[in-house]
């Protein structure tokens, strides 16, 4: 049985963009994902606290659907890679419970949220 996952990687910010894309292709190849792996590059971003000597990291969010059996090998590769400062793999939560909100609902929610912030 395959499940939906979301992974966040923090790469060393000194790596070239091409090297990061390279690594991503390699890791995602190990997953043998059903359908495509959707990636979202946040790019370089300041870390909220220093991790070792690093103040910045290159963030990438990936979503994929795969069999859990492929995960141990993939995670082992991530752990061994010095270019990956941190990573987190979570079950993508829309899978459990209700379907995600529609576009209009999201928009309304966002508007509400902004109103809220004005009060502070």
């Amino acid at each position: 049985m395959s499940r939906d996952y979301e992974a966040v990687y923090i790469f060393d910010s000194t790596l070239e963009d091409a090297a990061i894309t390279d690594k991503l292709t390699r890791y995602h190849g190990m997953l043998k994902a059903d359908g495509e792996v959707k990636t979202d590059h946040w790019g370089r971003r300041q870390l909220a606290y220093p991790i070792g000597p690093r103040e910045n990291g290159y963030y990438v969010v990936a979503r994929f659907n795969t069999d859990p059996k492929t995960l141990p090998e993939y995670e082992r590769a991530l752990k061994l890679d010095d270019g990956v400062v941190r990573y987190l793999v979570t079950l993508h939560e829309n899978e459990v419970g209700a379907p995600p909100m529609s576009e209009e609902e999201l928009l309304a929610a966002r508007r509400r949220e902004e109103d809220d912030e004005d009060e502070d």
Partner: protein
Amino acid sequence: MRRAQKSCPFCETRVRFIDYKDDRTLGRFITDHGKILPSRLSGVCARHQRQLSTAVKRARYLAIIPYIRGHQA
């Protein structure tokens, strides 16, 4: 400190799952030092408070929000 709210801000906006990657939202539910704001102050319902707690901890691990803020070593 935030004043107590009548109802859960997540329920009001019909949030189903709290996103650990959304630092702006999480930032509203942590104190100046980075602690998770108790639900009695924020008015968050029990279900969302549980989700919030997990989300904050994930965000901390990913250095999206700090574990501690304003501490001089």
